[in-house]
């Protein structure tokens, strides 16, 4: 029994205990235990994952566990990576979730809503959710995969609905989430069933051997279907609509788990099916992936830039980052298809490294948003501000996360974005004429990535600067207080992870390079060499995050010392903000998030189409004297408002038609059953 097995056993045991735990009487203990169990799941995941990443493989089969099939688990390096990721995220969120729940409180008359929950279901669901996510990548055959996938979907749905009692929107979000995730499931189901029937076996190992023999039509059908399904889970445009609804409404630790861990499983699916089972495939698959990725990145970052709800902003930023990751994957596949393995390896490495980075900082950021929400009951950036003085730890952690998310040095996001850009800019040959498709796609891809990066900076400066700096814009923000220790520990863990990834990226890179070996069309070569500097192999290019960080710090120290030495040591005086001598400056006069995003929103008017309404109330004495002016701006998700209503209308029409079938007579329903049975038997008789 290897370490992998032990880890996975630990995961399952913890999940089992979660069910028992639900019987514990006191809500507090339940909350604590559920957090602890989630940590256990995470621990198991980390153990199993790291062991698998180091190369130990493991597989187990449980016959008779599933009808008409058997439970089959196989762990290779690829699944190891994702098991590890999910485990790490679960570990941090588990600790965090212990302190999160908060009963509704009555403060000066007004009741403040509850956070988290004390309901048995939700508390039991948390470890189960983590366990399901850890186990999905270990599935060794189609049925097991689908069962675990559906388990994950259902449990997460239960978690999204946690707070439905306190807020009605939650129910709405739950419906959207359920609909989208099951639409995705249908696509995946179709894809995998077609694949397994055509390949004549449902075990991944055998599919891997027989799949290359399949007709290219079948392969493409399978790939496109699975891309749709996994893409919806990964929150790619236009199937992203569930993210900005579910993430804000779910409790923040659940949002963290979903946004940092679950979406990655969409990526896992695409890698597993596209690169492993189907072994690469033609180039247009990956150009498609690249295109969708670029669109998702741009659309996600534009919506995030315009969003004023902190958690909605983070949800859209997930779409953005997954978009960047899929740009990398798509480009890697494109070059793998034409046998340029060096480039393919580099780009794939960039993609998986960015996955890891994104998992780290998105966990951190959602925890931070949760901390703010818990202590101020605010998600609206326009009402925040001044939290830096009231919640110093949370602010520091969120600052680290925001730095990473904006892809600036010395953050960890920068490393992977740099690798991605290096891969893209070296895609054209130094001499001679390049391939047409590459020559057209790559400049546009670079432009898209660059614009995404630029807007990402603006987005997170807005989120951090408006939300945490300067003076509070509302009573709630002014009354904020630091959150309990367990939550801080959870955030600190994620922050440390970000720091390590930023300063010493080579250790994770070494581990990730071994993952590439699982994908035959890419092969395990080392795209990156070097100790302190990241040196690209086969391409001249190098960059050293550690030295850059040290240089920045050293320069800062040097500058401070010199300036202090030269200047007269006058102490810094705190004075009122300069308002052109204005006498009645109030914190409400600070720039809000809406105002901050206004110029960019106006530049991208054609994409965002914000709805403004201004109402001016005059004094009744004279309409030349303005009593108050009220300005509201709403940026709705245009893809959602344009694309989905027709679909829903169509679905309704089908529903209306279907109603004719049911008129309440039991006999008729039974007759349907009989007819169905007869049809099946006939079909069998004909085919056999």
């Amino acid at each position, binding site marked *: 029994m290897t370490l992998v097995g032990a880890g996975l056993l630990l995961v399952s045991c913890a999940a089992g205990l979660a069910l028992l735990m639900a019987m514990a009487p006191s809500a507090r203990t339940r909350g604590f235990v559920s957090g602890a169990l989630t940590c256990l799941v995470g621990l198991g995941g980390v153990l199993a994952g790291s062991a698998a990443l180091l190369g130990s493989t493991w597989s187990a089969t449980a016959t008779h566990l599933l009808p008409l099939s058997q439970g089959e688990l196989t762990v290779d390096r690829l699944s190891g990576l994702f098991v590890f990721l999910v485990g790490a995220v679960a570990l941090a969120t588990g600790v965090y979730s212990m302190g999160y729940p908060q009963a509704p409180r009555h403060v000066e008359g007004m009741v403040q809503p509850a956070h988290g929950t004390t309901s048995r279901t939700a508390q039991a669901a948390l470890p189960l959710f983590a366990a399901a996510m850890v186990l999905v990548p270990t599935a060794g055959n189609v049925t097991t995969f689908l069962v675990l996938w559906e388990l994950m979907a259902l449990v997460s749905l239960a978690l999204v609905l946690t707070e439905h009692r306190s807020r009605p929107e939650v129910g709405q979000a739950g419906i959207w989430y359920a609909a989208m995730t099951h639409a995705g499931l249908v696509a995946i189901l179709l894809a995998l069933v077609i694949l397994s029937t055509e390949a004549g076996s449902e075990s991944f190992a055998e599919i891997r051997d027989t799949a290359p023999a399949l007709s290219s039509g079948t392969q493409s059908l399978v790939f496109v279907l699975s891309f749709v399904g996994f893409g919806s889970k990964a929150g790619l445009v236009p199937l992203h609509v569930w993210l900005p609804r579910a993430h804000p409404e779910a409790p923040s630790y659940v949002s963290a788990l979903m946004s940092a861990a679950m979406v990655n499983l969409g990526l896992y699916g695409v890698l597993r099916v596209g690169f492993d089972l189907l072994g690469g495939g033609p180039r247009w698959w990956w150009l498609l992936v690249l295109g969708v990725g670029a669109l998702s990145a741009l659309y996600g970052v534009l919506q995030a830039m315009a969003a004023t709800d902190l958690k909605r902003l983070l949800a859209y930023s997930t779409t953005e980052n997954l978009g960047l990751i899929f740009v990398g994957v798509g480009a890697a596949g494109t070059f793998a298809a034409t046998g340029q393995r060096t480039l393919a390896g580099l780009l794939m490495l960039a993609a998986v490294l960015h996955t890891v980075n994104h998992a780290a900082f998105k966990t951190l950021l959602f925890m931070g948003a949760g901390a703010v929400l818990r202590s101020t009951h605010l998600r609206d950036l326009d009402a925040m501000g001044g939290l830096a003085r009231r919640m110093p730890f949370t602010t520091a952690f969120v600052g680290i996360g925001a730095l990473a998310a904006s892809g600036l040095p010395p953050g960890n996001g920068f490393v992977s974005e740099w690798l991605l850009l290096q891969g893209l800019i070296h895609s054209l040959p130094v001499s001679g004429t390049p391939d047409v498709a590459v020559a057209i796609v790559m400049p546009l891809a670079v432009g898209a990535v660059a614009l995404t990066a630029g807007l990402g900076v603006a987005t997170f400066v807005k989120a951090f600067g408006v939300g945490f700096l300067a003076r509070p814009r509302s009573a709630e923000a002014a009354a904020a207080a630091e959150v309990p220790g367990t939550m801080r520990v959870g955030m600190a863990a994620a922050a440390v992870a970000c720091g390590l990834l930023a300063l010493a990226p080579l250790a994770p890179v070494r581990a990730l390079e071994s993952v590439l070996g699982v994908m035959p069309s890419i092969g395990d070569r080392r795209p990156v060499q070097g100790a302190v500097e990241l040196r690209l192999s086969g391409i001249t290019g190098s960059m050293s995050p550690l030295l850059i960080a040290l240089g920045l710090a050293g320069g800062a120290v040097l500058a401070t010392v010199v300036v202090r030495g030269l200047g*007269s040591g*006058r102490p810094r*005086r705190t*004075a*009122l903000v*300069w*308002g*052109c*001598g*204005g*006498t009645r400056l109030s914190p409400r006069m600070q720039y809000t998030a809406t105002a901050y995003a206004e110029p960019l929103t106006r530049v991208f008017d054609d994409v965002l189409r914000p709805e403004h309404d201004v109402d001016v109330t005059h004094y009744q004495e004279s309409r030349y004297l303005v009593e108050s002016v009220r300005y509201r701006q709403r940026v709705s998700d245009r893809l959602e408002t344009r694309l989905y209503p027709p679909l829903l209308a169509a679905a309704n029409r089908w529903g209306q038609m279907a109603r004719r079938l049911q008129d309440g007579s039991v006999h008729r329903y039974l007759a349907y059953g009989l007819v169905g049975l007869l049809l099946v038997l006939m079909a069998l008789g004909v085919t056999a």
Partner: protein
Amino acid sequence: MSLLGKIRRTGRVAEPALPPPVEEPGQPSGESSADIGFRGSVQVRHVDAGSCNGCEIEIASAFGPVYDLERYGVRLVASPRHADALLVTGPVTHNMRDPLVKAYEAMPAPKRVVALGDCARDCGIFADAYGVFGAVSDVVPVDVSVPGCPPTPEAIIAALRGLSGR
């Protein structure tokens, strides 16, 4: 381009530099720019505390091409935080009193106040007008005051050069 031609034809319009300041004019305190620590650079924030804009016109021409006050290291700035000298014109009206104080407090030490024109010194012709609170020295400590209604650009230049020491 026609503009370039005009520039070439016009050439230099600034008059030759005036003789460097002797410590006397407008320097009651008698401190030199080195004592204050300005040493050849003065950034000026101008506040119109209720002036008739006569002084403003003279300030504009002092900074204009002909007199070119900038050549002596004097520059107008937008924010009192960047400023060393507060250039106040006009009598201080009731409404401008608080803003003037705020502007003075917003300036980092060491700072100097220049009261420009008769109105700034002693309310001039606006003395005892109902809207007038008082002279600048009634609101903020004045270091240099420039007489005249309005003061000539030469006077303004002399006062500010006294501060910059160039």
